């Protein structure tokens, strides 16, 4: 048995829409098999994982809490990936954004002013942007592989946070626990609808960012530049676009969004700095970006789906007693199926059963 591919004369519009859905269905089927192998009732497990979290108001709030950083980061990454710049270090930019944004509420904790929160958000975005500028600089001027450098910086960022929290920024009244002092109320990103749950303004920022980037990609020259340079650097150069400037733009832009996500997370959801501030949002956002077909509006939907895997993991841990590692497995599976289903968009797939070879192949 062999699989043969035949290039479609035109990109299939139908499959471009169907393929992420098909990927989700395949993930569910594989998930059911996995639960069965773990000795759980697949229907009950999938229900606990993917449906129950959607049935209560408070857990819908939790969904928004978890989707916000994913969407914010993924929208930035989509700009990078569209322009063929592979920023894999969003987790590090998220961490640094959380640190720089926390500077004011930790160091100037006596300063009470309505300016505190806006300044924090700006500092967070700046920190993420600056940290992302490092792999951009290295790629633009030293021709260094940005995948590897941005990823190495994730580890350094996490170690830096660890050092800060165990040293200079540790709460003097924290009984030696590695946490910073709690943020004052004016340094907290406000909740959207406090009476019913925790969801805060980060989710609104995420939606605004996604819509703005969608508009930019679709209707502005910058968006055109991103797509052209991403598809062919040479063609872009003939059009007068600079690939070096695009490296800077895409990295700084995605870094700023990741940094903003970082400060929103520590301020809105956690309330202080601690050594572990992210369950891998920066890496999961890569999946979100691809599942959303690198389209900002698609990313809103895929961000919600991936947020559901986090929630489902927590819920399934409690209700059916599987480890929360299942979350990561689901996330990996989704990305795998998205990538394989995408083949359908560009190629017709034929399965050849005979052993006889066709043509010269």
């Amino acid at each position, binding site marked *: 048995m062999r*699989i*043969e*591919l*035949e*290039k479609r004369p035109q990109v299939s519009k139908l499959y471009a829409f169907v393929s992420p859905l098909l990927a989700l269905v395949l993930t569910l089927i594989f998930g059911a098999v996995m639960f069965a192998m773990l000795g759980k009732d697949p229907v009950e497990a999938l229900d606990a994982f993917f449906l129950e979290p959607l049935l209560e108001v408070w857990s819908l709030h939790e969904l928004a809490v978890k989707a916000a950083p994913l969407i914010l980061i993924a929208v930035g990454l989509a700009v990078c990936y569209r322009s063929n710049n*592979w920023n*894999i270090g969003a987790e590090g930019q998220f961490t640094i954004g959380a640190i720089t944004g926390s500077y004011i509420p930790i160091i100037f904790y006596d300063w009470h002013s309505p300016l505190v929160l806006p300044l924090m958000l700006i500092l967070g975005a700046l920190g993420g942007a600056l940290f992302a500028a490092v792999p951009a600089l*290295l790629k633009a*001027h*030293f*021709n*260094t*592989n940005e*995948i*590897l*450098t941005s*990823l*190495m*910086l994730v*580890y*350094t960022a996490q*170690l*830096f946070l*660890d*050092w800060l929290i*165990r*040293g200079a920024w540790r709460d003097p009244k924290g009984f030696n626990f590695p946490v910073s002092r709690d943020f004052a109320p004016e340094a907290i990103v406000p909740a959207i609808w406090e009476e019913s749950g925790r969801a805060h303004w980060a989710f609104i920022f995420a939606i605004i960012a996604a819509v703005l980037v969608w508009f930019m990609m679709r209707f502005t020259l910058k968006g055109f530049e991103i797509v052209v340079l991403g598809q062919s650097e040479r063609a872009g150069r003939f059009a007068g676009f600079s690939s070096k400037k695009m490296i800077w733009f895409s990295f700084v832009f995605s870094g700023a969004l990741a940094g903003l996500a970082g400060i929103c997370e520590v301020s809105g959801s956690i309330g202080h700095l601690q050594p572990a501030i992210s369950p891998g949002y920066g*890496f999961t956002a*890569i*999946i979100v970006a*691809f599942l959303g077909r690198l389209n900002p509006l698609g990313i809103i939907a895929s961000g919600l789906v991936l947020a559901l895997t986090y929630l489902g993991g927590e819920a399934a841990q409690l209700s059916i007693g599987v*480890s929360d*590692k*299942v*979350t*990561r*497995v*689901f*996330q*990996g*599976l989704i*990305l*795998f199926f998205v*990538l*394989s289903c*995408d*083949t359908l968009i560009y*190629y017709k*797939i034929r399965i050849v059963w005979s052993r006889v070879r*066709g*043509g010269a*192949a």
Partner: protein
Amino acid sequence: MSIFEAILLTVITASTPLVIAALGELVTERSGVLNLGVEGMMIMGAVAAFAGAQISGSPYVGIICGIAAGALFSLLFAFLTLTLVANQVATGLALTLLGLGVSGQLGEPYVSVPGIQLKEIVIPLLSDIPVIGPVLFKQDLIFYLSIALLFGVSWFLFRSRPGLKLRAIGDSHGSAHALGIHVIRTRYLAVMFGGACAGLAGAQLSLVYTPQWVENMSAGRGWITLALVVFASWRPWRVFAGGYLFGAVTILQLHAQAFGLGIPAQFLSMLPYAATIVVLIIISHNRRTTLINTPASLGKAFVPER
């Protein structure tokens, strides 16, 4: 044993997984396939080796499980990128994310279970040589395998006919196909070889380096491996030298932590990652030499015309 010998021994232990995984990835990349999933394959090898050793009671069964896990897991990557021509970068990332998830799930029952360490094999006579004897000839099987791999891979790539074909595919898959070389089949084998090596490297981590199972215990080594291949400009001996350089940095920072130089431990732990970045800058800043050394078809999908 002198302190010098002790340090040398730990450097070897820290370098061996890097060398093994990098040699595997080197063969994969020489065939024109960029597999960024080394971290995922390595961690799968680590958990499979640990589980295999626990179940059977023998670390050697563990090694075989590690190799098999790495190779099988890489098959997933090969199917997606070679048969379904999916984007190699994205698929490699997917492989890593999936590997970290699946290994965490599979390793759950083995957390804080005492591991089975691989015993060293003493080579008679040679191990009696002062200083280098006990360091080089009183080692575990995986170290000897890493040396055999070094000679094997360099012989295969530059002295054998299939190796020549593999390099031809990596440099121009179109021409190689026109000459009647099986591009896809060779690449499948090259990817699986890379996966087997990454699995063996993972087995070293959970059977020799720290004989236990800890989630995410590969700690970015798979990514450092990828940097090593670039660093070595796709040459086996330079991979070897680079692997030992990085192993030495890792160990020296550990010793520096123990001596307490007044530098915070976290900053010393950053050293291997920082060193990777610095080395990448030094190697890549000359665009022309990088282009000459890189396999020309690296990362490009191949769809045979019919």
